[in-house]
């Protein structure tokens, strides 16, 4: 049985390592100060796809991402690790999308790809932590979903058996394909880039990434796999009113950097007498006992 797998991936600012210059004086986020990375749980998702590809014949793994042209970077990163192909959804009309408009765009692209058996994405992206896109893509495609997956145990007779996390425990579920799966960060880590694949794909690029004076035109003409697919709203037959800001039911009313109510605090050193005095004070006030 051949299998077509689409891995949903997002390029995200690395919000886990936010330095002091990451916020502007006005309290907005200085995106330029944050490195752009492959969303960590999407890497866990890619690993699950690559394992299926190893375990059975005739599996194709493609990476679908939406973002600015530079998001082509994560398609290359996916190719280096073993994906077969990739698609970049990029268009100004996609900008300002909330999770619902994002899901619409991704679902429309998946329809365009066609005959997809399995859609696998990370549980959530670290720049939003919403975990909404996976289930919403599933709903828009009319597919079943399994979220918080830790391991796709097997795919047999058109059904996937999956171990997933639940609150306070684990579950094993069986779901028919086609299916949308979101993978939790506790799943197996993604394999590193393969040196041969890096050599093969390092000049792969989307049309918008290729500069006018590109001096590898001949190379790209010769090796078709270096030309990554890039789609606009029109290319996937999307309805612009359901994309980006206009397709987003949620609106941001305001964004604040939080100024916490500073308390009057007592300053202590690590010296024995300070710690001893603190413990005595807390005991006397019956705060600890």
């Amino acid at each position: 049985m051949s299998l077509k797998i689409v891995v949903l991936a997002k390029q995200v600012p690395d919000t886990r390592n936010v330095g002091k210059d990451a916020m502007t004086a006005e309290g907005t986020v200085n995106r330029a100060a944050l490195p752009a990375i492959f969303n960590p749980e999407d890497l866990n998702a890619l690993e699950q796809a690559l394992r299926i590809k190893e375990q059975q014949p005739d599996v194709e793994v493609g990476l679908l991402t939406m973002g600015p042209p530079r998001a082509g970077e994560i398609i290359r990163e996916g190719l280096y690790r073993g994906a077969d192909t990739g698609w970049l959804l990029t268009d100004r009309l996609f900008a300002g999308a909330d999770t619902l408009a994002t899901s619409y765009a991704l679902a429309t692209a998946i329809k365009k790809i066609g005959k997809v058996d399995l859609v696998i994405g990370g549980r959530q992206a670290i720049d939003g932590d919403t975990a909404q896109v996976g289930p919403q893509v599933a709903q828009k495609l009319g597919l079943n979903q399994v979220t918080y997956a830790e391991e796709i145990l097997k795919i047999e007779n058109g059904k996937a058996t999956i171990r997933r996390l639940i609150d306070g425990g684990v579950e094993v579920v069986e779901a028919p394909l086609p299916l949308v799966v979101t993978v939790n960060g506790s799943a197996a880590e993604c394999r590193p880039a393969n040196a041969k694949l890096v050599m093969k794909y390092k000049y792969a690029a989307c049309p918008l990434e290729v500069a006018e004076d590109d001096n590898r035109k001949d190379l790209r003409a010769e090796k078709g796999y270096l030309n990554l697919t890039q789609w606009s709203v029109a290319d996937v037959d999307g309805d612009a009113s359901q994309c980006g800001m206009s397709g987003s039911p949620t609106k941001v009313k305001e964004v604040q950097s939080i100024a916490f109510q500073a308390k009057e605090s007592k300053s202590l050193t690590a010296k024995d007498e300070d710690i001893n005095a603190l413990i005595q004070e807390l005991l006397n006030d019956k705060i600890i006992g």
Partner: protein
Amino acid sequence: MNNVFVYIEIEGAEVREVSQELLTKGRKLANELGVELHAVVIGTGIKGKVEEQILPYGVDKLFVFDAPELFPYTSAPHTDIVVNLFKEEQPQICLMGATVIGRDLGPRVSSSLTSGLTADCTQLEIGPYEDKKSGKVYENLLYQIRPAFGGNIVATIVNPDHRPQMATVRSGVMQKAVYEGACKKEVVYPEVNKYVSPEAFVVKVLDHHVEAAKHNLKGAPIVVSGGYGVGSKEGFDMLFELAKVLHGEVGGSRAAVDAGWIDNDRQIGQTGVTVHPKVYIACGISGQIQHIAGMQDSGIIISINSDPDAPINKIADYVITGTVEEVVPKMIKYYRQNSK
């Protein structure tokens, strides 16, 4: 029509605490809006077992869907029931726990109804909103307030034109309280097969295993919490010892969880557990907003940090400038000496 709805989560026939917390919040919102609080619970063999765990929190009307195969939860049947019920009832607000179930169901329902959903809210308020482009003013919208961008900012989200306005909230963020005021406490048992078709039951749960929580971090009176400054998994052993002598629990920041020094079910913050202890001892925690969102309502906050300018120090009652390695053993020592 136009009421506030809470989706009630269950394990077997036991209502999850997060749902009761949401009922208490939902009651306040309903009172402010002058509407009713409704609840929906979906399971198997729950009739007569769950009502008294739900109604006391101020519910005017409870919809109980009881049929085979509705427990354990699977996405499609629960989505169908909630979506079809909402098409009839047209609620203005729907709250769910930001749990595995709520975060599986919420987006599916919101996508079906094309309504906006905000995940992991830390505050919910009612207020007006002016659309800057159209100049249109909306009254009585739900402000869905949450830290965003890894917790570096706080965003207020509204859904002006779509209903219901949906939000998920993590366990422990709101506080449950039995409602003292008057409410209708009506219970109805709709016919399940009118809301969900047999084709929805295609995902089979082969094995479902839930363990009792290993710790009571959420309810602990004293929390010793460690961050990146703890430095290692071994460093956390010291924190566990301090927690043990103080009869408290140990938590950690996202950085410590990401580093693998402590289990992720002990993560404190917006994307983890929210705690309200009497005493919070922050060990080597710098204090990202995402963390502070989960502990700022603690009674007394003690910060141990080698950086005197750590952001968390601003909200601390006691700031100890020093390393965790040096200070924590001294706290253990002097507690043992003085408490005898």
